[in-house]
């Protein structure tokens, strides 16, 4: 295997280069901290304000994540394992909130309840905006579970609740850990959502500092603390995930689980699903419709909306393609030539996606303005930022589809005289094309809704739907902001459908 890899120095080199670029933001934080000097750095880090932000951020994580887990697992269980009426419809509705950017959720809520603020508001909106990230993997896992374990547990006399707690829940551990990590990282990274309801987190404070002093030491030190929080979450998840095996051992295929009858619980279950859908989809839908109705045709300045739409599409497609392209070598290596080096490279690719946009942007602003001035405020830098932020998404989609392409085809092509890279292109890459398309779509979805990095890095004259929406809501012109919110939702909708279908496919459904 290793001889095979060494015959592909080019692929490894590309993966190495991408990994090194991925390390730039982290390296930047370290270098700046060292440059700032211990005295200044500690004065900026060990102060009341940072403690305040830490408490806010910790409380947000500690309250939001457990609520999200309970909600997502309940909904997933109801839609996947019970005879819930119209279960497929509820399953779709549980994913749909993803089509609404988090800061649009916030906008909808603040329009409806203008007094909403602080931790309570933050938890409410975060749960509604992010629970699908947990629902998707948990539902997929539930669909895949072999019912025989539950049956064995039941035959040993455990009550249904105990069967769930002792036989089902442990098998959901991976899905719950992964989903919680995703939610947790989003809570750290999110900016717009919390600004609107006046809840200060590290992300909002860094942007405040940025707007008061550009890339001053205070902003960079806050970024350093935020990076530590992210790494802490990653470590915590790795520890909780544990090393147990969850694969089914034995021959044959698992049966499809029998759906449990809800009986008299049917009505409460339906009410719960209805309530969640009303809060997570209904509220944005109603407020958006209301603002659009109030604004009428006057809020549709075709040239401005069209311009922002065009720029957003351009960035989303360009960024999506670029990110997928640079992720291919790594994805291929991790499936076909696993090794210690590959695992290190892969970690470099993956960790950067857990950094908030504000940190990556701050790093790129400072580096380009100080060292690579020609790249400063260009599309190149913005696209690099997008690639760094969304690399893990592309990697996940690509890896799964490359893994499904049989390596024998590559070998056969090589035996027939194709050079290895040609062989890979003619066999695996062709088979993995749907995965690449999904990767591009996932990244494009992220770019469409990205706010902070775009605000800080975009070239002069560039306005995306997200930045335009943001500047209008900052002037509390909620009516004029509505068309941009609508366009973002419309753009995200098909991509969300892709996501849902993909999770279904991964589980073989």
């Amino acid at each position: 295997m290793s001889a095979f890899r060494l015959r592909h120095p080019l692929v490894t080199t590309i993966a190495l280069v991408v990994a090194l670029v991925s390390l730039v933001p982290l390296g930047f934080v370290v270098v700046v901290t060292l440059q700032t000097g211990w005295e200044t750095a500690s004065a900026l880090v060990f102060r009341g304000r940072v403690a305040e932000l830490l408490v806010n951020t910790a409380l947000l994580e500690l309250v939001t994540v457990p609520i999200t887990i309970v909600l997502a697992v309940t909904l997933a269980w109801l839609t996947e394992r019970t005879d819930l009426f119209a279960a497929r419809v509820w399953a779709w509705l549980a994913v749909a909130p993803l089509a609404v950017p988090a800061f649009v959720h916030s906008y909808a809520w603040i329009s409806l309840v203008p007094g909403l603020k602080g931790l309570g508001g933050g938890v409410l909106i975060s749960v509604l905006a992010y629970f699908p990230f947990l629902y998707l993997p948990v539902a997929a896992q539930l669909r895949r579970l072999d019912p025989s374990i539950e049956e064995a547990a039941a035959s040993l006399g455990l009550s249904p609740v105990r069967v769930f707690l002792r036989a089902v829940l442990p098998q959901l551990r991976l899905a719950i850990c992964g989903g919680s990590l995703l939610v947790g990282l989003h809570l750290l990274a999110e900016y717009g959502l919390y600004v609107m309801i006046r809840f200060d987190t590290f992300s909002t404070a860094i942007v405040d500092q940025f707007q008061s002093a550009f890339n001053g030491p205070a902003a960079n030190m806050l970024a350093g603390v935020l990076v530590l929080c992210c790494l802490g979450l990653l470590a915590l998840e790795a520890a909780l995930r544990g090393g147990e095996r969850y694969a089914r051992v034995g021959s044959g295929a698992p049966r499809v689980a029998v759906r449990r009858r809800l009986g008299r619980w049917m009505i409460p279950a339906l009410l719960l699903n209805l309530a969640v859908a009303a809060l997570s989809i209904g509220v944005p839908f109603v407020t958006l419709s209301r603002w659009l109705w109030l604004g009428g045709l006057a809020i549709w300045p075709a040239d401005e909306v069209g311009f922002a739409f065009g720029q957003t599409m351009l960035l989303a497609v360009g960024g999506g393609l670029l990110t997928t392209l640079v992720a291919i070598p790594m994805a291929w290596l991790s499936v076909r030539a696993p090794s210690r080096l590959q695992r290190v490279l892969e970690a470099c690719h993956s960790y950067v996606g857990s950094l908030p946009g504000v940190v990556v942007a701050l790093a790129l602003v400072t580096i380009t303005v100080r060292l690579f001035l020609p790249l400063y405020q260009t599309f190149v830098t913005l696209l690099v930022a997008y690639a760094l932020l969304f690399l893990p998404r592309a990697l996940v989609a690509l890896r799964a589809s490359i893994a499904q392409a049989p390596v024998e085809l590559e070998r056969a092509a090589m035996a027939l005289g194709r050079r290895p890279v040609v062989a890979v292109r003619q066999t695996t890459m062709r088979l993995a094309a749907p995965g690449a398309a999904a990767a591009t779509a996932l990244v494009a979805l992220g770019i469409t809704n990205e706010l902070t990095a775009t605000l800080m890095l975009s070239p002069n004259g560039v306005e995306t739907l997200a930045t335009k929406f943001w500047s209008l809501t900052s002037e509390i012109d909620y009516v004029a902001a509505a068309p941009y919110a609508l366009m973002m939702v419309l753009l995200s909708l098909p991509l969300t459908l892709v996501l849902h279908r993909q999770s279904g496919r991964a589980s073989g459904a």
Partner: protein
Amino acid sequence: MSASLRRAGTVGLVVLAWAAAGPASAESAGIVVYNAQHESLGKEWAAAFTKETGIPVTLRKGSDMEFANQIVQEGAASPADVFLTENSPAMALVDAAGLFEPLAKETLDQVPDNFRPSNGHWVGVAARSTVFVYDKTKLAEDALPKSMLDLADPSWKGRWAASPAGADFQAIVSALLALKGDAATKDFLAAMKQNVTPYKGNSTAMKAVNAGEIEGALIYHYYYFGDQAKTGENSKNIALHYFKNEDPGAFVSISGAGVLASSPHKADAQAFVKWLTGKGGQAILRDGTSFEYAVGKDDASNKALVPLAELGYPKVDPQSLNSKAVTDMMTEAGLL
């Protein structure tokens, strides 16, 4: 190189070429303005100027201090031709770094002495007055603070709002610093940390006062007039309190414009600043919906406003406003 990599390389190059083409095409046409003014006012100005002169204007939206520090770091390579702010401290910062091109005499002559720095490196283009907006259903006139410094009193704890991260508020603090000195400013900020409810943006703070969430807010005057001219939905319960008597809270902040020494389009940039301070630019302040004060000699402001001459504002040399000290002090006080 293999075929697949060549193809990948081609796609990559196309993406990069297209990416590189973006800013280049923006640079070749007209001037780039770093606009920290309200987006709507900046756009109105730019559109009218382009219509009159045929010179295209590309606006970049940001905030005062972000841009000022950005320009200092960009130095000679700054893509900006003109810097347009809401307040003076940002202008003073760029000027202190020696990055402004002196303005043409005709431009300076259009604005009275007290609305521009004496060195003529930049010029005032509009002005805004500090006010205390308050919920008139909750606060009687005799319960209002006599001075902005009264808001530091413990009796005001939790009762007033501001937008400390905004350049507007930081300009007020820099005026306080210039008028009352280090110690008094630090004391005020420390007390403010205890008393204030922070909001993001002046409009948001005003909206909160109107909604009865808080009794008052220290902001600039025109948010109120702007809302009144629209639906009044966010200001119907509000009244304005002007501190007057040369109180720091009566500070009139000057929005500035300057041409960057690094600009490759100096003639067009000078023309833009001259136009802003001339009849065309000032008429937009008088007739438009920005409700900022006009500062041109003999140029009238919007009729809805209390005239500048009646505001009793303190005399502060706009050049003396120290933004760096202010952000450091505010960071130290835990407000940032």
